């Protein structure tokens, strides 16, 4: 098993951790400012950046093969489909 087991990997983990904390601070601070619909956009955008960092680095998705990527992304596509379909139905009823 060839893993990145250098101190470089650990430095990356700590850097991602700091980035996650900073993004948390930003999203909480932004929530106190009234930006209308942009509050929702900003909050979901920041959450998605944080989620991507966790998946890519902490869950090592960036060094996984395409099969694992498929298993990670396909359920998200299905969730988007379920959400879109349900919203279209309930909003236009």
């Amino acid at each position, binding site marked *: 098993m060839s893993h990145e087991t250098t101190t470089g990997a650990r430095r990356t983990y700590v850097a991602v951790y700091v980035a996650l904390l900073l993004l948390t601070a930003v999203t909480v601070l932004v929530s106190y400012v009234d930006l209308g619909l942009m509050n929702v956009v900003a909050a979901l955008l920041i959450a998605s950046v944080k989620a991507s960092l966790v998946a890519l680095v902490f869950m090592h998705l960036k060094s996984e093969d395409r099969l694992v990527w498929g298993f990670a992304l396909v359920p998200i596509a299905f969730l988007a489909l379920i959400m879109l379909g*349900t*919203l279209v139905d309930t909003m236009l009823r």
Partner: protein
Amino acid sequence: MSAPHEGHGDPRVAFESAKLGLWTFLATEVLLFGALFTAYAVFRAKYPALFHSEHLKLNRVLGTLNTVVLITSSLTVVLGVDAIRRGKARLLERYYAVTIVLGAVFLCVKYIEWTGEFHHGRYPDSNIFFSLYFMMTGLHGIHVILGMGVLAYVVVLSRRGRFSGEYHTPAEVAGLYWHFVDLVWIYLLPLLYLIG
């Protein structure tokens, strides 16, 4: 048909299979939580004013504190995985033990929040926002409890000398599960506490 299970003896293949199995499980988890996220989206679109007024009643500081706790626990998990990849079983046990403690801290904060809500007369049947709040954080809390159990089991296995730099599959897949629990919370914080 000659060798249908060829490759299963290969530790590398076994490790990749176990990882893929865990990702498959996470796919079902995405859809489990996804149903609740969909319900959230539908009712938020329907009752924006209610969601706005109710979400202000949640304690943003405690929600943020718990976010920091869970993000820190993800770091200790990934450092634990890194430790056992280098063959350091004792270090893995220590990092995972810290993670379990952080999980307990998370649940304590959650307990304080929930009792606070109950104290103010806010229950799962108060309105649709609090129904979703208690369902989503409750289901997530169950995942935290299960995750703590899984991590504790990994620590026990490690104490028994089961893991090495070459073999430590349970530690890796338990870590993946814990990160997923963190991922769900990363979305729950903004949806429930920040933008309601």
